[in-house]
């Protein structure tokens, strides 16, 4: 079969359309460059009535929103999940890693939690604090101007707090706390835990003429039809198109490799069109990878040539190494003081209105990195699972559990909104031995070799998880809560979720000044090939106790500015 080659020469080919790819598309197309965006999934627009899940009622799904097909339920807007038919991945030596992929325009930004936190100077230079891992080759001052621009372009609500490790930005006003969040504030403060308004990218106030303002349905995971939350399609790619950008969108197109010439420079990409299952080639002067940390690593490792026998950009043998995810663990409790609630519309924004940034000093603890706390609960919309074990909480009052009849209606109402939970999301220490690599024995249905993962948590993360549970219990008890699960044991890794489960995987193409120990330079340009850049979370040297998206966006913008500048100077 002949590979079909397009005659168009693009200035830039961008692989992936999530946060990193979307931002690169916006900045590069706005500057007048001719851009191809290659996305493995279908076109998606939350304003399209056929694709909307927002404001649907549970009964519109015959499974009432159950997670049989989509891992976060029928109404979640991610197409994909931990397992995608025909696109396997494998694990090595009995280790665990779960890989969430979202195949659609905008990628995982369509359903993410919108928690939008800046890294601080400490986060970029954490080795200076505890001697572990590596420092980034850049610091807060390098990224700050871009964080500022991202805040103003996309919008993030929050509050100025002057906390040393939680840099303030250009915030929209925050939504008022809900009832269970007021309980959390009280409970956390009793244990001297800082609580501040959340920082999330929903537009609580007009930010530009193209986007609507949040109408508080609490369904950001379903993607907003008035574009009041940040998704890469609705807030970056569509505006860039509207702005007259020269953008060719290739959807359902699965990139196999970056093609190179005799000098070893990139010439474009080859991809499989999922509709006709044939291989095509696109030509470009510059290739920007934004396929997600692991997918971009996979593309590089699969791009083998005489000039790059170890895969593209992999002369260091570092591609795929230092893979790390945020740590995560959760606990929930029954709060008797939240029983017998009056009902009113408290949907609010999707997710929490308040949170706790890391509040302690690790020097005084037996683990090196921190975690932030997320809060959940309330009188939300029922979905599959609502009403299960309707009166199990009776056991806390010595009442009978079970039964049938109209008394169950009273039980359901009595306990509606009385359970809340808190989750820790923490920083792990990147390890060279946690990695993804090509599995030589397995291909996906497009014939592309797949990834094999090797990942183990260390005691740093286990001890952190143990600390999380001590905190959870203390705070929930402060609220008068009855724990609904036992404290997880050592054998259960203290409740630490499997790596990959928090969907913050980063680090596979890390940034550094030394080409021997890193894959890209401080402008996210491959050390080995100057016309290939990576703008997803692969270049992260370390993932702070934050969420990666705001930093992906800021760094992608910074790299895009660098590309424009380098093209002007004819350096690439």
């Amino acid at each position: 079969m002949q590979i079909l080659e397009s005659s168009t020469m693009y200035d830039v080919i961008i692989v992936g359309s999530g946060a990193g790819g979307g931002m690169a598309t916006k900045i590069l197309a706005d500057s007048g460059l001719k851009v191809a965006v290659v996305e493995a999934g279908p076109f998606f627009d939350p304003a399209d009535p056929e694709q909307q899940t927002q404001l649907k009622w549970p009964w519109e799904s015959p499974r009432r929103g159950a997670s049989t097909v989509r891992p976060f339920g029928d109404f979640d807007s991610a197409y994909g999940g931990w397992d995608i038919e025909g696109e396997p991945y494998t694990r090595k030596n009995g280790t665990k890693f779960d890989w969430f992929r979202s195949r659609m325009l905008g990628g995982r930004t369509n359903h993410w939690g919108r928690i939008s936190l800046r890294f601080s100077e400490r986060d970029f230079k954490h080795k200076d604090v505890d001697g572990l891992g590596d420092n980034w080759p850049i610091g807060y001052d390098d990224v700050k101007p871009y964080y500022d621009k991202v805040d103003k372009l996309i919008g993030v609500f929050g509050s100025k707090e002057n906390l040393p490790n939680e840099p303030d930005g250009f915030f929209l006003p925050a939504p008022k706390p809900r009832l269970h969040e007021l309980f959390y504030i009280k409970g956390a403060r009793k244990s001297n835990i800082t609580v501040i308004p959340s920082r999330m990218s929903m537009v609580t106030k007009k930010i530009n003429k193209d986007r609507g303002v949040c109408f508080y349905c609490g369904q950001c995971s379903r993607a907003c039809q008035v574009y009041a939350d940040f998704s890469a399609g609705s807030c970056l790619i569509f505006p860039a198109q509207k702005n007259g950008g020269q953008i060719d969108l290739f959807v359902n197109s699965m990139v196999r490799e970056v093609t190179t010439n005799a000098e070893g420079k990139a010439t474009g990409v080859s991809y499989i069109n999922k509709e006709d299952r044939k291989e095509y080639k696109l030509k470009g002067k510059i290739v920007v990878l934004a396929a997600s940390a692991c997918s971009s690593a996979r593309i590089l490792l699969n791009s083998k040539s005489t000039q790059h026998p170890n895969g593209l950009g992999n002369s260091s043998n570092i591609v795929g190494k230092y893979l790390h995810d945020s740590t995560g663990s959760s606990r929930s409790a029954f709060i008797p003081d939240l029983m017998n609630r009056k009902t009113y519309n408290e949907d609010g924004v999707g997710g929490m209105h308040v949170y706790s940034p890391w509040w302690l000093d690790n020097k005084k603890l037996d683990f090196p990195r921190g975690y932030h706390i997320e809060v959940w609960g309330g009188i939300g919309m029922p979905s599959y699972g609502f009403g299960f074990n309707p009166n199990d909480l009776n056991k806390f009052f010595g009442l009978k559990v079970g039964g049938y009849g109209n008394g169950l209606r009273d039980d359901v109402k009595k306990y509606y909104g009385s359970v809340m939970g808190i989750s820790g999301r923490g920083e792990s220490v990147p390890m060279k031995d946690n990695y993804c690599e090509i599995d030589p024995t397995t291909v996906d249905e497009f014939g592309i070799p797949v990834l094999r993962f090797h990942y183990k948590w260390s005691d740093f993360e286990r001890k952190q998880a143990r600390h999380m549970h001590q905190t959870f219990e203390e705070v929930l008890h402060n609220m008068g809560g009855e724990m609904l699960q036992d404290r997880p044991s050592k054998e259960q890794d203290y409740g630490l979720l499997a790596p990959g489960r928090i969907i913050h995987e980063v680090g596979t193409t890390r940034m550094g000044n030394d080409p021997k120990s890193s894959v890209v330079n401080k402008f996210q340009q491959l050390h080995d090939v100057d016309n290939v850049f990576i703008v997803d979370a692969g270049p992260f040297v370390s993932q702070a106790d934050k969420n990666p998206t705001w930093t992906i966006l800021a760094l992608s913008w910074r790299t895009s500015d660098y590309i424009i500048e380098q093209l002007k100077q004819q350096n690439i």
Partner: protein
Amino acid sequence: MDRRESIRSIILGSVAGGLVISGCKPEAEAKADEELLKSAEKHFGRTPEEKELIAELNAEQFFNEHELATVAVLCDIILPANDSFGSASDAGVPDFIEFMAKDIPELQITLRGGLMWLDHKCNTEFGIEFKGVTLEQQQQTLDTIAYPDVEIPEDERPLEIQFFSLMRNLTLTGYYTSKIGIDDLGYKGNMPNLWDGVPDDVLQQHGVAYEEEWLAKCVDQSKRGIMAEWDDEGNLLT
């Protein structure tokens, strides 16, 4: 046959099959078919593959007639109508359970085996299957399986107890995710709203209050439509 056609044939097959066989139909009826088709295409954001899966599941039948009738009787004992709201089967719960049995096949043996247990038990004790005995006898039978020992982990409990818990779960979740159930529960959201905090009486009921300092950081809904502008320090000016 394309996807649209296959959905059409399923609908026509179940509802208006006679019209198709007759081969020619008046325009008004053809139009009614179109409407029917449109309502079936009522979207909740499914991808083409997901729609196909739903159509496939809908085309299958898991419970037989007797089982489905027993499920309906059981659902309505678990959640009968009251003065204000309908019963589980008024809320469409049996159809929902039929769908879930196909959607999550792991449920099938517990459901089907449990229904057999009910009939066996009633046949042994009353000489007639579950749905035919008196309400009192039905309740007497259920009383032996409706109150699990919470000290025993769920998967170690006898099958009939697991079965009843599963039926209760599916009945209640089916009910509270239906329109009737959501009205009954009093859930007020899933519509455009301006969240402006917890009502005062609710704050009082639960013994909490807002702090002025915190509220000062929060959105003033009267200014939500005014374009955001900041000074260089990030102070919101508008």
